[in-house]
């Protein structure tokens, strides 16, 4: 009797999963002739599900080498010095544009990637690669504010609350994002290349950054967690990570109403890739509804895959979280960063150095 109860219990646990499994979805199959070949992937750290690569190896009968990097710059530097043998890289939007201009990417053959039909149409044809000649979206997310709910019981809905907060704040070490937010508030183009506008954005940030104790490279969430800051301007995934780790409601993430930055990481093939055809097969595999959903369920970033979202493969908990999939009216106010060219790049650089110097005065 006891055993029967246990059996029933297990069945009950399995049931919702079994229901969600769309019976119509056929598992992704690998085109033939790739048996025994090798694929080298160069991806951000902690940015793939545990079974994504093993399943691909099994489906295609191939071996995958997997290597990780920590920043677009680090990856770019490696490829610039001559591709050491990678077939797949995952550059962010602006980096795609820059690499395409420097002829560091191989054009994609969309005929080999039928699953491109699964991608959310709004995420295709972004300003950095209008024809998706070189890139297809991998995951996307936003930059916003992570805050301690104890300090802000009513939440944060405006950048003014960040600027005016009487307590320690951490900003993100991402010059174009931070200046872009200031541009947005000053009603300028977030990717402005105008010297006066860039200086105005710099001055706006210096003026409103009196409470900034640190400009953190990518560990604002750690400072928040340790109580060193009350607000951290950060990537949504990082803030979600700490709420997830502590299983508590101490931290929350919000995109202020004025708007913020949206980033899209993309699958691309670097120049001199040893096996570009298998790379395109891999891109098709990632864009499969089930594979893409498993990926998102594991790393908790927003999926660009319409089919994954509609098929119900993605956990409801993730789909209904506005911090991961922001509502449409917020999405409308998000800006993507594009490459601004050498001249504006230098202006932005100088403005950022000056900002760092004067924030601490």
């Amino acid at each position: 009797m006891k055993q029967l109860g246990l059996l029933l219990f297990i069945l009950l646990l399995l049931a919702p999963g079994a229901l969600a499994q769309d019976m119509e979805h056929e598992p992704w199959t690998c085109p033939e002739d790739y048996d025994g070949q090798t694929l080298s992937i160069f991806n951000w750290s902690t940015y793939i599900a545990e079974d994504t690569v093993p399943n691909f190896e099994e489906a295609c009968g191939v071996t995958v080498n997997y290597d990780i990097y920590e920043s677009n710059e680090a990856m770019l530097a490696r490829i610039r010095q001559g591709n050491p043998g990678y077939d797949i890289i995952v550059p962010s939007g602006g980096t795609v544009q820059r690499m395409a201009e420097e002829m560091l990417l191989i054009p994609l053959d969309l005929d080999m990637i039928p699953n491109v039909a699964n991608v959310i149409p709004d995420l295709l044809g972004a300003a950095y690669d209008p024809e998706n000649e070189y890139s297809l979206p991998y995951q996307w997310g936003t930059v916003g504010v992570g805050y301690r709910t104890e300090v802000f019981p009513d939440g944060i809905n405006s950048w003014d609350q960040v600027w005016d907060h009487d307590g320690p704040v951490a900003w993100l070490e991402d010059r174009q994002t931070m200046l872009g937010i200031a541009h947005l508030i000053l009603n300028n183009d977030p990717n402005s290349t105008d010297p006066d506008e860039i200086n105005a954005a710099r001055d706006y940030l210096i003026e409103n950054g009196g409470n900034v104790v640190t400009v953190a490279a990518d560990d604002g969430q750690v400072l928040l967690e340790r109580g060193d800051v009350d607000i951290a301007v950060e990537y949504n995934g990082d803030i979600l990570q700490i709420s997830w780790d502590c299983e508590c409601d101490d931290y929350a993430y919000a995109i202020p109403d004025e708007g913020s930055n949206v980033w899209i990481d993309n699958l691309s093939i670097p120049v001199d890739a040893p096996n570009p055809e298998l790379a395109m097969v891999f891109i098709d595999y990632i864009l499969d509804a089930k594979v893409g959903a498993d990926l998102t369920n594991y790393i908790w970033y927003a999926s660009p895959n319409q089919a994954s979202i509609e098929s119900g493969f993605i956990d409801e908990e993730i789909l209904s979280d506005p911090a991961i999939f922001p509502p449409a009216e917020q999405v409308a106010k998000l800006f993507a960063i594009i490459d601004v060219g050498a001249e504006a790049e230098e202006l932005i650089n100088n403005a950022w150095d000056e900002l760092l110097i004067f924030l601490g005065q």
Partner: protein
Amino acid sequence: MTRRIRRLQQNGFFLAMPTIAWLFIFFVLPLLIVLVVSFMSRGRGGVAIMPLTLQHYERTFGVFFIILRRSIGLAGLTTIICLLVGYPLAFFISTRRRRLVQQITLFLVILPFWTNFLIRTYAWRILLGEQGTINGLLLSLGMINEPLSMLNTQFAVLVGLVYGFLPFLVLPIFASVERFNFRYVDAAQDLGANDARAFLRVVLPLTMPGVLAGCALVFIPSVGAFVTPDLLGGTKGLMIGNLINKQFGGSGNMPLGSALSIVMMAVVMLSLLIYVMAHRRERGA
């Protein structure tokens, strides 16, 4: 005879060749490249391109000057604090009668080196944090009502630098004091000097080489410190090392970074020059 000396000299030159070649290829040449790059313009992605320009030096002595001044100030203060703490410590260690006590205390000075510098500096973040160990202790003892803001200040950088570089000052002073013959103190006192006078006129001058070497060993790495201000300083404790580091990422400005480095090197060279001159005067006196 003279022929033999000449041959020895020739052999000496040949024996030194590998070292000279090494120094030239890996020190002189890179230094020259940095010098040349510092006068070039910034290209896309932060690389150096023609034409030549002085604008990076203008910026170094313009907007960057406050940070340069702060770095020299913090390094100077670090050296003074290390000296005030380190000299008595080195004196204590080298005047122990029992060899074992001396060895143990010396061992304790070196012990922190067994742990990676990055980890030790990171530990200070946990100690100095808003909800860190020190604040927790002071709060529970009722000595303060609100946590002190220690992390992300110049104070935190100073603590980190003194902590990190103190052994570099203790060791050379220890070596100097150990060689010091305490009969000189007896002689000074026989001639009527009190303790303070004997210390200032006899002990200090004779241990000066160790003091100067120790100060140079603390000041030089402090002025270019990067890890300590990066982890402990936040916006208020930013030092020149952090700004140089930022210029060499994919979207930095290598010529500007080179100009900043050259100026930093000049500061270090100047302090070494002071060291050498002071040392020479010591020996001459």
